[in-house]
């Protein structure tokens, strides 16, 4: 069993608290991704699970056993690092065999396991080469082969794709997902890239400032972000935000901003009246037309192929962005009208950033 449980885990570095009371359960066999900006504590959390860092307080259990006092090599884990950490003075073969040699496995078994791992990662022709002679993608596969050869129950990955170019990153994402399905092992993956998180994870842990903002499945996090931070972190382009106050007129609620007055759905509680809130609307829920709705002026159009992004100003502090059909006849400087789809409203408290609807 490869369930991982973190209970009230805290990590301090001097006066700075990198992880502030983490409670997390990683299910056996799941692909869990920890995502967040730099300095949010995701790598520190991963290092504590691996044993490379000791928690200041709290408990970490793997497979039901508390591992706080166990060395990294005793926890049955495999880890892939951001810079891959391939030994430059050893051949690919010796890199893959390193962990087996540490455990004093017999030479014949080392040979068969190394070759099997190389075959699985399609790097058999590289066994005699050194890491410096391998490309970025090949080095990535060598690092994976070195990890799978020891048959760990849990794979830890610290931004392993960050040094690859965009196309290779997409290819390797698929490769990792296939590897996960094939091995049925638990994967704990750290990244700052929300696209990686959305495409690969069974569940996502969103972190910020050492705290967990939200845990959930990718679509759940995208459709119902628990805070303004989560809402702004996920989705390309970034969600549109309008700050204002909720007011009540004729029994219905509306958001009053400096330039707009938007009616809120009837499902919004009346207790929101008078509250300072932030309305979040994704670009796909902003409708653009030539007539009716609120006025705006096109600042920039970004064609993406299947769709285009139109950035327009409406008198607010920051421009809004909408997704449009690339055939729509709009140009920079054109006047337009826009409206929002109420089904896509996300309401957040202006002070705490927490979701209200």
């Amino acid at each position, binding site marked *: 069993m490869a369930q991982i449980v973190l209970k009230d885990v805290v990590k301090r570095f001097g006066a700075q608290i990198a992880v502030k009371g983490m409670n997390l359960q990683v299910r056996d066999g799941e692909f869990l991704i920890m995502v967040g900006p730099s300095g949010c504590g995701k790598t520190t959390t991963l290092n504590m699970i691996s044993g490379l860092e000791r928690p200041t307080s709290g408990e970490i259990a793997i497979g039901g056993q508390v591992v706080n006092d166990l060395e990294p*090599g005793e926890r049955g884990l495999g880890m892939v690092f951001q810079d891959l950490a391939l*030994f430059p003075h050893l051949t690919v073969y010796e890199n893959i065999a*390193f962990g087996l040699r*540490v455990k004093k496995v017999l030479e014949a078994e080392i040979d068969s396991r190394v070759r099997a791992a190389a075959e699985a990662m399609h790097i058999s022709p590289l066994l005699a080469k050194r890491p410096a002679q391998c490309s970025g993608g090949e080095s990535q596969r060598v690092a994976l082969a070195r990890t799978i050869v020891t048959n760990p129950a849990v794979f830890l990955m610290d931004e392993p794709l960050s040094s690859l170019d965009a196309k290779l990153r997409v290819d390797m994402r698929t490769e990792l997902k296939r590897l996960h399905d094939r091995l049925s092992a638990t994967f704990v993956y750290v990244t700052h890239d929300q696209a990686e998180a959305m495409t690969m994870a069974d569940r996502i842990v969103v972190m910020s400032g050492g705290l967990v903002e939200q845990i959930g499945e990718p679509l759940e996090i995208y459709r119902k972000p628990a805070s303004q931070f989560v809402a702004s972190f996920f989705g390309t382009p970034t969600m549109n935000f309008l700050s204002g106050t909720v007011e009540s007129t004729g029994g219905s609620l509306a958001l009053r901003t400096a330039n707009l007055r938007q009616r809120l759905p009837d499902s919004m509680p009346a207790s929101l009246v008078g509250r300072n809130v932030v309305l979040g609307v994704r670009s796909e829920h902003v409708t653009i037309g030539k007539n009716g709705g609120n006025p705006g002026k096109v600042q920039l159009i970004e064609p993406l192929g299947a769709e285009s992004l139109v950035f327009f100003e409406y008198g607010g502090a920051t421009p809004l962005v909408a997704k449009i059909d690339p055939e729509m006849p709009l140009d920079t400087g054109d006047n337009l009208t826009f409206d929002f789809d109420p089904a896509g409203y996300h309401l957040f408290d202006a002070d705490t950033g927490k979701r209200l609807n």
Partner: protein
Amino acid sequence: MTTPAEMTREQTASAGARNVRKQRLKTIARHAILIAWTLVILFPIYWMVATSFKESGEWVAWPPHWIPHEPTIKNYSQIFAFDTSEAGVAREATEQPFNVWGPLGDSLLICTVSALIALLLGTFLAYSISRFNVGGKHFRHAILMIRMVPPIVIAIPLLMYYAIMIPLAAETVLGTRIVLFDTRIGVSAIYIATTLPFVIWMMLTFIEEVPYTLEHAARMMGAGRMYTLRRVVLPLVASGMVVTFLFVFILNWAEFLLALTLTHPDVVTLPVLLNKFQSASEGRLFGPQAAIGTIITIPVVVLGMLIQKHLIRGFSFGTIRK
């Protein structure tokens, strides 16, 4: 008639040409001074090598013989040969022993052993400082302070320790006489102590170029600290260790004051031997001295040229990082 615009163009062109001439003169002057100074610095070495190939009549001739008139290898054959003929034995009765083999052996043994031990100790200490912050954040700078003490300051106190205090203490406490004065162990010990700061400083630079993640990866695969050091870190700093060894060897090879103070008559290193050449019949034996000086200088120059590129890297004090 020239227009004001044409006059301005002409003035600009001639000012430009004057500047170019000025720059050229400055460059020539700078190079001339550097060449002259280089010649001044290199002249004693040239004179030493030239003297080593001169007959005794030319050593102090006036006006000086800039190039040997009758070049000879007699000085070299004198210091290397065991002359057991009657003339040779008779000469040894009036002169100090020429023979370089003993001091050459002593120098090689002391310099090699002390460099190796300093390298071993210093590498492990540098690793501890780098990975465990042993001694705190200022330790790596404080270590170099040991080397700032001029040898002349410690030479006589060390003589007292070696010749009197240590034997006395050993006899009182252990009941046995331990002598470090005029021993290869004694000289090696002080060479290790004085070169350790350099080893630590240089190896720190090389060790800190090894990424932490390599050791983390080895730990994740179950490797202990010593296994990781042996199979991951040391192989990656091996070339740095060779450079450091050679550098320390050069320092020990040319060391004179401490060897002179702490040895006599059994242990003689080459720089100390150089000091000894006197003859009842010929006075100061400049020819054989120059021959020994040349022998001492050759390894320093050759090894120095081999490692100079790496020395610059080592002395960057970790300020240039990848």
